[in-house]
């Protein structure tokens, strides 16, 4: 059986229960509890550190208000409630990338609770509850001379990442398929990047996901044994890891075996998960309230001020694009995929480019060029304004499609003024009826066989005549007009 078929068969007998936990680094300027820059990738190892994030004796944390704002913004985007009272707690464990011996996190009174995320999966609407969104600090990073710490001959510690604000988004176990899990993550990342709190990079780990998955026989009330899966650093990896877990768990259950509650790691190269830690080996984190930080009181006025900073979210924007610009659901979704994309689209429309024309070009040729050159439109030579003037020339009939395509490709890289270029190079479309009628007559005279074939009913023969007129204008002819003129002349004779 193929993998897909195996999964489908398993899903017939078992209900899969999946809950996802996402850790997202916040795009704040400074770290969570100290003034160090939060950008940990561009500095030399341990350069972005201070006594606070190094955990030296006697120093104290102070709360980064921007991180609180970002988390509240996220919580609101996910329809969460913001309790008026929240606090930080210490999560205690020893590890060399955790200088204080505890992580400042949130335990029983998180910053927000009870939200949800809605999205379509294969035509069905899925609604996944959000248990909580809370705020904590990231750890440092380690570089082992060997695979893992235990067998390494030495380890280097970089504490640049230590203390970077980290948001934990805990989803309810409402997801029923690996595909839904993947889609949840795609949507969540889209929202986080839309509201500007996270850069959504799974590979670099600024957006990380752990999954809890269990199986139970269809109809059973009780939940099955839960397995936590880690080490997935792409959307594809999440889906594959969950599929692999479903297969593994199905085999065990089918054979009458029992599963153990454990943490498993996804090994991309082997396409399977391996056991990392059983429940018995689980840490006792000894959470208790962080005595160095007073509780936070987030009043309604503050929450409303943050709400006012929320941009229109992707789903709402796609809906509006359909209504306002008459786009199809598909086009609207494509054009609202990222906030930049949607902003670009609305800028084009605001610059008097017809909505449908803007949609076709932006999601077609422009997207292809952005891909090819790895440069988004707004940073290309052409820019949004340049594209708008180019498309206005198309709309006005000043240039034809093929000319516009060529100009676009050129200007995307080199930049320049489309109107000026069209004028200087004489690229303007030939759409003068008298001029074209003369060329049409000339083409019929020069290609009598083709003219005869067309009159005899062979539609395809028109192509040869069209090409002749196009060549005669150096490719600048208004081809729809040429088509009409040819038909009229051939049929009247």
């Amino acid at each position, binding site marked *: 059986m193929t993998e897909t078929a195996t999964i489908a068969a398993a899903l017939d007998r078992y209900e899969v229960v999946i809950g996802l936990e996402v850790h997202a680094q916040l795009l704040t300027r400074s770290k969570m509890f100290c003034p160090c820059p939060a950008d940990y990738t561009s500095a030399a190892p341990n350069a972005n550190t201070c*006594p606070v994030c*190094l*955990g*030296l*004796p*006697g*120093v*104290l*944390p*102070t*709360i980064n208000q921007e991180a609180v704002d970002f988390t509240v913004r996220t919580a609101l985007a996910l329809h969460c409630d913001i309790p008026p009272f929240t606090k930080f707690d*210490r999560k*205690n464990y*020893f590890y*060399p990338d955790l*200088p*204080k*011996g*505890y992580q400042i996190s949130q335990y029983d009174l998180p910053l927000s609770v009870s939200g949800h995320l809605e999205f379509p999966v294969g035509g069905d609407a899925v609604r996944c509850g959000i248990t909580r969104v809370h705020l904590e600090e990231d750890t440092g990073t380690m570089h082992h001379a060997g695979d893992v*710490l*235990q067998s390494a001959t030495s380890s280097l*510690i970089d504490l640049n990442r230590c203390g970077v604000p980290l948001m934990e988004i805990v989803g309810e176990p409402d997801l029923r398929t690996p595909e839904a899990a993947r889609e949840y993550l795609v949507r969540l990342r889209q929202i986080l990047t839309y509201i500007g709190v996270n850069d959504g990079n799974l590979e670099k780990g600024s957006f990380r996901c752990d999954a809890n998955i269990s199986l139970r026989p269809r109809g059973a009330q009780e939940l099955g044994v839960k397995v936590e899966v880690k080490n997935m650093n792409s959307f594809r990896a999440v889906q594959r890891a969950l599929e692999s877990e479903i297969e593994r768990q199905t085999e065990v259950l089918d054979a009458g075996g029992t599963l153990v509650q454990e943490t498993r790691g996804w090994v991309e190269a082997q396409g399977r998960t391996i056991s990392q830690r059983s429940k018995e080996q689980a840490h*006792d984190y*000894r*959470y*208790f309230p962080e*005595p*160095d*930080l*007073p509780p936070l009181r987030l009043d309604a006025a503050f929450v409303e001020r943050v709400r006012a900073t929320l941009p229109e979210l992707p789903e709402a924007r796609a809906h509006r694009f359909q209504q306002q610009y008459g786009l199809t659901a598909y086009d609207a979704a494509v054009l609202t995929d990222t906030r930049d994309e949607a902003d670009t689209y609305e800028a084009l429309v605001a610059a008097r480019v017809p909505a449908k024309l803007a949609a076709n070009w932006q999601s077609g040729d422009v997207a292809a060029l952005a891909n090819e050159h790895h440069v988004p439109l707004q940073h290309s030579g052409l820019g949004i304004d340049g594209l708008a003037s180019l498309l206005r020339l198309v709309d006005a009939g000043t240039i034809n499609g093929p000319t516009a395509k060529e100009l676009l490709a050129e200007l995307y890289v080199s930049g320049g003024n489309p109107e000026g270029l069209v004028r200087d190079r004489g690229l303007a479309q030939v759409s003068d009826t008298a001029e074209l009628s003369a060329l049409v007559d000339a083409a019929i005279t020069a290609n009598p066989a083709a003219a005869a074939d067309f009159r005899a009913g062979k539609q395809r023969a028109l192509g040869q005549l069209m090409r002749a007129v196009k060549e005669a204008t150096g490719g600048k002819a208004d081809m729809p007009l040429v088509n009409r003129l040819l038909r009229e002349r051939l049929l009247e004779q």
Partner: protein
Amino acid sequence: MTPRTITELAAALRDGSTTPRTLLDAALAHVDRTEQDLNAYLAVTRELGYMQADAASHMLEEHPDTASPLCGIPMALKDVLCVDGIDTTAGSKILRGFKPPYTSTAVQRLFDAGAVCVGKTNCDEFAMGSSTENSAYGPVGNPWDIERVPGGSSGGSAATVAAGSVPYSLGSDTGGSIRQPAALTGVVGFKPTYGRISRYGLIAFASSLDQIGPFTRTVEDCALVYTTIAGHDPRDSTSDPRAVDDPLASLHAGVAGMRLGIPREYLGEGTEPGVRDAVQAAFRVLEAQGATLQEVSLPSTDVALSVYYIIAPAECSSNLARYDGVRFGSRVERPSLTDTYLQTRGVGFGNEVKRRVMLGTYALSSGYYDAYYRQAQKVRTLVSQEFEAVFKEVDAIVCPTSPSVAFPMGSRDDPLSMYMCDVVTLPANLAGIPGISVPCGFVDGLPVGLQVIAPRFEDARVMRVAHAYEQATDFHAQLSPYASAAA
């Protein structure tokens, strides 16, 4: 010449009869003479001191009128206070060789005022203890009887003021670690309201209880030091932003018409008869000054000790996790990470620290958290509420600072009897309220302290009552043999 107070020295510096260098010379010479007996210092900061003395001379010359009263005056710091580039050990082997790259806010405020640092004083390891016998660097002698302890944990800071080496020092008080040694060495010791003094740069024992405060010879000096170091610090989120009342403004207002409460639980069976007599005599002095004394009740006092010994160790078990040998301090190198952790901490920490780390770890463990830590927090709230209720009846509380006078070294080898030392001081830490100890008599030549406690942020009131008592008596003017020898 008897050891002089800050007020007297400030005047002498301005009338030209002395200089900051002369004062530092004298302090260092006194320390040199007495250290063999007292062991009050873990480091003498000669170089820093002379640099500061010269800077202070400059300040006094340029701005004699606006210079702080602390300018040019020598002082000492408990070794839990970080000073940039100066060895800071917290009395522990695990921090041997640690030089913090920053200065604690309270200390920086003294430095900015022109203070001259003589050295870092000995203390119980990580401020855990009531006798300074838990220092990894040997015990401190009480200047009144060097066979006896000076109290703790700030024993070195108390002893150096009692010995007359310096007119003031800073300590830290988590359960009585300033007030109790002040009482046992016959000096003034003050624990301000929690949140009044920034804890930034104070090596933490129990974050929700720790507070920095001064040791001085007089209450007026105490007010001078307090005023300099108190106030909001953006680097300590638990420091309070409200304006600081000037204790000097009300210092001389007296106690006439004041209602003072005597908690019946604070003079229980554990109190030595001599201490009880001295404190009751002190009550009569206050009455004679026009105060009305009445008995009050703080029923949770007996459980406060247990609560303290859950909360303080719980916080300490977490605060001390950073001493893992990875980044600073001493490390015992072992092939595996776990063994390196175990050996570093096993060798680096003393017994009392290990005991409290284990107690705290246990109290926070899953399955025990509700029974211990959560329950303790509830009782802590109750302790605060009882104080609040009492402060509706009275303006301040007066009571002994310590149930006993200084005890012989090695006489309290059972931890529980040592913990009992703090039974009348630690409730103020649990409630975050201010408390002061002033000398109020002697038992067989050993000092007794009177404690004054007031509501949160009524630090000025505490000093006002203590000052009124001090001015009516001369116990504070009596000198330990080491201070008399300075004459």
